[in-house]
C-alpha cells in the first residue's frame, strides 16, 4: 500500500502539538466553566480540534494511494542558516554589531557550496561594516559597534 508520507508526517506533527498543548491546558491551568472560562478552556478546545484534524490527515495519508517523495533536503543550508541566527542571538550582546554581524554572515555563507572562502570573507567584512554604519550609527540600534568583551 502506498502511504502519503508527507500527510502522515504532517498529521503526526499536528497530533504531537495537540497532545502537548492539550495536556498543558488541562493539567497546568484552570479550565473553568463556559461562563467563567479559565486560561485553559480555549486552548484545550483548540487542541481537541487540532487532534481531530491530525487524525483526519493521517487517515487520508493511508487512503490517498499516492506516494509523495520528500525531495532534496538541504542539510547544509538548514544547519548553517539555523546556526547563523543562533550565533547572533547568543553572542551579539557581548560581541557588538561589527563582530556579531561578521560572524553571523560568515556562518550563513557556509550554507551555500557556491561561495568560496575568499568570497565569504569579502561579503562578511563588507556587510559587517555596512550594518554597523547603517544600524548602529545611522538608525541608533542600541547595539554597540564593538561589544563589551573587547573592552576589558
Amino acid at each position, binding site marked *: 500500500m502506498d502511504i502519503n508520507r508527507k500527510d502522515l508526517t504532517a498529521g503526526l506533527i*499536528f497530533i504531537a502539538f495537540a497532545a502537548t498543548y492539550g495536556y498543558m491546558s488541562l493539567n497546568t491551568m484552570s479550565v473553568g466553566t*463556559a461562563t467563567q472560562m479559565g486560561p485553559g478552556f480555549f486552548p484545550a478546545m483548540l487542541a481537541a480540534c487540532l487532534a481531530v484534524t491530525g487524525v483526519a490527515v493521517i487517515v487520508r495519508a493511508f487512503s490517498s494511494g499516492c506516494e509523495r517523495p520528500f525531495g532534496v533536503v538541504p542539510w547544509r543550508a538548514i544547519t548553517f542558516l539555523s546556526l547563523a541566527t543562533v550565533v547572533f*542571538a547568543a553572542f551579539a550582546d557581548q560581541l557588538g554589531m561589527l563582530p556579531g554581524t561578521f560572524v553571523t554572515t560568515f556562518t550563513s555563507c557556509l550554507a551555500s557550496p557556491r561561495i568560496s572562502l575568499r568570497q565569504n570573507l569579502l561579503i562578511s567584512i563588507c556587510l559587517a561594516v555596512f550594518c554597523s554604519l547603517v544600524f548602529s550609527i545611522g538608525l541608533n540600534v542600541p547595539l554597540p559597534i564593538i561589544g563589551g568583551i573587547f573592552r576589558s
Partner: protein
Amino acid sequence: MDVFTNLALGFSVSFQPINLFYCFVGTLLGTVVGVLPGIGPLATIAMLLPITFGLSSEGSLIMLAGIYYGSQYGGSTTAILLKLPGETSSAVTTIDGYEMAQKGRGGPALAAAAIGSFFAGSVATLLIALLAKPLTLLAFNFSPAEYFSLMVVGLVSSIALASGSIIKALGMIFLGLMLGLTGTDVYTGAARFTFGIHEMLDGLEFVAIAVGLFGISEIMRNLEQDGGAQGRVAMVGKLMPTREDFRRMIAPMVRGTAIGSFLGVLPGGGALLSSFVAYTVEKKVSPHGAEMGRGAIEGVVAPESANNAGAQTSFIPMLALGIPSNVIMALMIGALIIQGVVPGPGVINNNPALFWGLVVSMWVGNAMLLILNLPLVGLWVKLLQIPYTILFPIIVAFCCIGVYSVNNASFGVYQITAAGLLGYVLIKLECELAPFILGFILGPMIEENFRRAMLISGGDATVFFSRPVSAVLLLLAAIILVVVMVPAVTRKRDEVFIEEN
C-alpha cells in the same frame, strides 16, 4: 460633503514634507527589496519593520504602506523580467509578462503594470475614503459574538486561498491560533505555554515568527537546488507602450480594478485572489482573450490592476474593524500595536490624522511609484542581476538585526531560528503558512471575544446563532468551507494553481 473634509485632512497630513519623505523612502526601499529575487512583500515588510520603530505613528504607517506597495510592485518586475514571482499575487503576471519580455516587449509590459497599478490604486483610495466611515459605524454595533464570527469568516476564507489540502490548512489555522495564545492570560494573569521561560510571558514575537517563517525558511528552500543558482534576466527593450497597447489596456484595467477592489474588502481576500480572478475573467471576456498566455498586454495589465486594487482595499477591514484580512495586514496590525495604536473602529475617530493621512498617502505612494519606476527601470534590471549567493547572507543579517531591535533583546532572534526550522518542515510537508500566521495573529483576539461573548450570554453557546449578524457570518463561513471542499471546485482550484507553475 464629509469625504472631502476628511480627504483634505489626509492631504494636509501626507503632504507634510517629513511624511512625503517617509512615503518616498518606503516606496523606494520596498521596490529595491521587492525587486530582489526571492523576497516578497511579506519578507520585505518583516525585514524593514524595525526601521519604522523610531518614527511617529503616522510616519511609521505611511512608510510601511509604502514598503508594502513598493515591494508589491517590485515583485511584478521580477515576474516580468525573470519569470520569478516575488509573491504569489504576481504569479499570473509571469505568464504573459515574461512572454512579452521574451519578445523584446519587456518595457511595455513593465509600463502596463505600473500604469494599471496606479489607476487601480487611485480608484481604491477613493473607495476606502467612501467606505471606511460607514463600516466603522457598523462595527460599533458589533458585540463580541459578531467579532468572533467575523474572525471565523476570515480564517475560513484563508483556507479558500490555500493551494494545497484543505484539511491541512485547517490544521494550520488551529496550530496558529494555539501558538498565538502563548504568554500571560489577560484575564487571570496565568502563564500559558511558556515552558518556564521568562521571556515567553510576553508571548511569541510576531515579527520574529514572520521573519523566520517567510524569510529564513524561504532561503532554505531556495538553496535546495544547486546552492542558489538563478535564471537569466530578460531584455527590457523600448519602454513606452504603443498607441495600440494603450487602447487595449483601458478595458482590462477598469475590469481588473473593479474585481480587485471588491475582492480586497472580503476577509481572506486581497491581492492574490484578485489577480487570479481578474486573469480568468479577462481570458473569458476580452476580445484578445485567445492571445493570452502568449504575451498579451491584457494578461499583464488586468491582474496587476486587480492585485494593486485588492492590496489597497484590504486595508478597509483592517482599519475599520481591526481585523486583518490577510497576512500582510496581520503584520500591519503588529506594527500598529508596537506603535501603541489599538487597531479597530476607534482609530478613525480617535486618530483621524493617522487614518486619513494613511489613506491619502497610499495614493501619493502610488503616484511616486509611477514616477520612480518607469525612468529607473534600468537600475532595477541591474539589481535583478545580483546573484542569490550574495543576497541571502544579507537577508539573514538584516533579519537578525531587525528582530533584535524590536525589543533590543536576543530572545526574538532565537525565535527566528525555531520559526525558520518549523516553517521549512511545514513547507516540505505541503502545509500552507498563510493560514498559520493569520491564526497566530488572530489567536488572542478570537479568544478574548469568545470568552466575552460566552460571559455575557451566561455560558450559552447559542449566542453565536441567535444574534442575526453573527449567525449570517457563521453561515457564510460554513458556505465557504463547503464550497472549497466540494471536489468539483477543488479540481478547478487545482487548475488555477497549476497555471502558476
